[in-house]
């Protein structure tokens, strides 16, 4: 790549199509003779399904097919663990879990049919607090996939000797921080068009972040060979991590494969919110110690991330949170424990920064509180601890090059002196 591009403005090559309104997102694709699919989703967060009665839906004129768990050859998908069902068979674990799907001549008929499906739910008490869900006597949400505990993942990180660190600390700040659940709210709601092409291959057109994974999951769920499935990525209307998991790909593919007709599906905004992953809410318990000279000497951090109903990327996200738990500061004695915990909340997965964003609230607030306690400026507190070439991180990585933090903070100093007044 030419270095001349750095510092210059490059026109996106897809920009012109977008400003002209020519660009095709999946909802903009139509196939002759296409049918329309819709999904029935659970209004309950935790329930046992006693029965699903689809007779009235199937009898509605214009309905071409009704699908439930028993129609899915291999009813499981997931980026790390296949712990999520394409259509739920017995146990609902979150609001929005898909129970049944209908394919019909029009969207209106498909949605009318969905409303006629009767599901007999036995509502179960939900686990909504990850710290409750962690307790050994909490009911296990995924006994088959994840065993008797709801703790999906635990990463301990140890460096030095925290007891020795506390002995050296002149000030100690202890605080609990909480971050909230967030939705990506990408502007383009999920949509899919699936059809069987002239070679007998299943083609799925979708806005995805992860086409090769989608391909594997569709093939697996439908019992097809990898080579029988093609995933075509259309224009993606924002994603921010929220399109890394399967949304409608398998359901649309299944219905196209079984009916032999092109099938289009579009989420409403409400369905979009109900069905895709969220950012992990985290609870961060921080205890940080520093000497009178403003040098950090010890950190104990416990981070609990709410994985929601399915694992998605939770282990990786909580790993990243743990690895970033000290912030860009050198701390010789560290004890970090990071957990991902299954609950009946919406499932959480990838979202911009992938777990590195939440700990910032904790470690930077701690720095401000320590600075205040020591009578130092927040800037000075950071300059005295920030990573340098030669620093060793909590995970034991020696930083050998490209550590520009001090320079960066120095460049910001005049701005900070204005107390945030950029003018």
């Amino acid at each position, binding site marked *: 790549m030419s270095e001349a591009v750095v510092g210059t403005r490059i026109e996106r090559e897809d920009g012109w199509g977008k400003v002209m309104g020519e660009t095709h*997102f999946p*909802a903009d694709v139509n196939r002759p003779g296409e049918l329309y699919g819709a999904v029935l989703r659970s209004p309950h967060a935790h329930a046992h399904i006693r029965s699903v009665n689809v007779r009235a839906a199937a009898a509605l004129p214009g309905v071409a097919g009704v699908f439930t768990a028993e129609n899915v050859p291999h009813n499981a998908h997931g980026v790390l663990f296949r712990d999520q069902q394409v259509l739920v068979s017995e146990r609902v674990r979150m609001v929005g879990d898909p129970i049944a799907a209908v394919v019909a001549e029009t969207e209106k008929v498909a949605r009318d049919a969905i409303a006629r499906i009767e599901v007999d739910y036995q509502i179960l008490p939900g686990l909504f607090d990850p710290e409750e869900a962690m307790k050994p006597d909490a009911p296990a949400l995924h006994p088959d996939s994840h065993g008797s505990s709801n703790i999906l993942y635990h990463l301990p990180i140890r460096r030095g000797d925290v007891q020795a660190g506390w002995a050296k600390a002149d000030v100690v700040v202890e605080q609990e921080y909480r971050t909230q659940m967030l939705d990506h709210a990408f*502007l383009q*709601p999920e949509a899919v068009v699936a059809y069987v092409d002239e070679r007998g291959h299943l083609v799925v057109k979708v806005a995805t972040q992860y086409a090769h994974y989608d391909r594997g999951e569709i093939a697996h769920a439908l019992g097809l060979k990898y080579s029988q499935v093609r995933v075509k990525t259309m*224009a993606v209307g924002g994603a921010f991590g929220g399109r890394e998991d399967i949304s409608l790909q398998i359901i649309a593919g299944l219905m196209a494969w079984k009916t032999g007709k092109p099938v289009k599906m579009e989420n*409403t905004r409400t369905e979009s919110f109900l069905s895709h992953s969220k950012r992990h809410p985290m609870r961060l318990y921080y205890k940080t110690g520093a000497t009178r000279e403003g040098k950090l000497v010890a950190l104990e951090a416990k981070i609990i991330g709410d994985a929601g109903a399915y694992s998605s990327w939770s282990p990786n996200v909580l790993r990243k949170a743990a690895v970033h738990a000290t912030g860009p500061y050198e701390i010789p004695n560290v004890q970090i424990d990071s957990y991902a915990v299954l609950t009946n909340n919406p499932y959480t997965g990838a979202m911009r920064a992938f777990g590195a964003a939440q700990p910032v609230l904790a470690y930077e607030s701690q720095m401000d509180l320590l600075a205040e306690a020591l009578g130092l400026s927040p800037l000075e507190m950071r300059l005295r601890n920030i990573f340098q070439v030669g620093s060793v991180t909590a995970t034991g990585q020696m930083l050998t090059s490209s550590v520009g933090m001090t320079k960066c903070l120095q460049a910001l100093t005049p701005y900070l002196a204005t107390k945030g007044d950029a003018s």
Partner: protein
Amino acid sequence: MNIELRVNEQDFRLVVEPDERLLDVLRERLGLIGTKEGCGEGECGACTILMDGKAVNSCLVLAAQAVGHELMTIEGVGDRLHPHPLQKSFVELGAVQCGFCTPGMILSAKALLDRNLQPSEEEIKEAMSGNLCRCTGYDKIVKAVQRAAEEVAR
């Protein structure tokens, strides 16, 4: 029901359902897929079109209500050989990322520039306040509208 619509200076005779949204008629019956649906309830502005020069959410208008009005969608704003100054400035200043909000943004901006060639930053933000963008952070969109206003004024 039978209706006539005038879209991008062309007349169309159509048979539509009485409860059919203008958005669906444009997209499904006329194939004008540049108009997008992001929410279906007047929140996001992705479905913005011009009706007699004013920006409206086509998801909140019935097709039958558009009879007798002059409609413009993104397809009528410009083409690759003759781009509107807004289309140029959006590309050149990086105001387009995923592009899903872009047609609606450009039409809201066009409604503004067609009546005010020297909008202040506040006026631009006000005129675009019904259009959500999740990618850009809006800054470049405001700059692109300012740049286009200068070009149109010239």
